[in-house]
């Protein structure tokens, strides 16, 4: 294994998230009740997704400045892991919404925005699959990647805050300040976010290394 310290940190933080997240005290709130604990698992998925997409865009820009197979592989695999996190985020959100809002799909602006940005990133992979030439594929998808990221930011992080959304932090709803009352929740929430982001990075780097090895094998066989 390569550079193991942050992988160990990820395991430690996630173990703490599960144990602390299920056992430690949370504020007694109406409607959400015990489900408030889902915060430690549902929200970090989106943080992880956003970080993965950001890194993916950084490598896309790097590719456009100085084309290389590595930059392209990094960009794709970070986007891939980010998409996986996003899908988990939307599924867990639907389960949570079913119990607190009454229906899995409430048409909430943040829910819709998240769904649209996931579709935007799915189209990224459709685009990649439809171009045969390696260099063209890398270049086109790198340009698309920059647009996909800049579309995601307003869709998930800005528009829902400007309209009335049932998500915390939107349309006059309290944001994370709601949990400020209970600093105990922050003690699990922040480590959870870091742990889940590190896990995403771990998965992405394993995928990247595998892709690079197999690309090299292809070159050798030619």
């Amino acid at each position, binding site marked *: *294994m*390569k550079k193991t310290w942050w*992988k160990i940190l990820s*395991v430690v933080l*996630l*173990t703490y998230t*599960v*144990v602390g997240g*299920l*056992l430690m005290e949370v504020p*007694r*709130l*109406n409607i959400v*009740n*015990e489900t408030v604990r889902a915060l430690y698992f549902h929200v970090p998925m989106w943080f992880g997704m956003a970080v993965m997409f950001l890194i993916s865009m950084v490598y896309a820009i790097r590719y456009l400045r100085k084309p290389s197979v590595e930059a392209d592989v990094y960009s794709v695999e970070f986007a891939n892991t980010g998409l996986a996190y996003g899908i988990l985020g939307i599924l867990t959100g639907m389960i949570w919404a079913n119990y607190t809002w009454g229906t899995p799909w409430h048409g909430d602006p943040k829910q819709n925005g998240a769904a649209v940005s996931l579709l935007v990133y799915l189209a990224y992979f459709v685009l990649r699959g439809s171009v045969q030439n390696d260099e063209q594929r890398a270049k086109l998808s790198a340009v698309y990647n920059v647009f996909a990221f800049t579309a995601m930011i307003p869709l998930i992080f800005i528009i829902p805050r400007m309209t009335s959304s049932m998500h915390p932090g939107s349309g006059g709803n309290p944001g994370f300040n709601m949990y400020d009352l209970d600093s105990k929740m922050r003690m699990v929430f922040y480590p959870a976010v870091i742990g889940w982001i590190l*896990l995403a990075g*771990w*998965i992405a780097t*394993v995928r990247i*290394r*595998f892709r690079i*090895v197999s690309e*090299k*094998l292809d070159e050798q066989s030619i």
Partner: protein
Amino acid sequence: MKSVFTVLLVVFIPVLLVAQQQVEMADTMRSEGKIYAVVAIVLVILLGLIAYLVMLDRKVSKLEKQMKG
């Protein structure tokens, strides 16, 4: 006056405490200790998946070494 206040306080403090407790939480499940079963199950799944990822990581490392050799 003072004594009236004290009486009111003594009467109302338990009421306030009860009002806080009224939000329904999984208190029974916790007191029965069944929550530990849930913690154990989720931990086994999490650590199992991580072990799986570690094995994948090692496999890729082995391939990388073979490429260099």
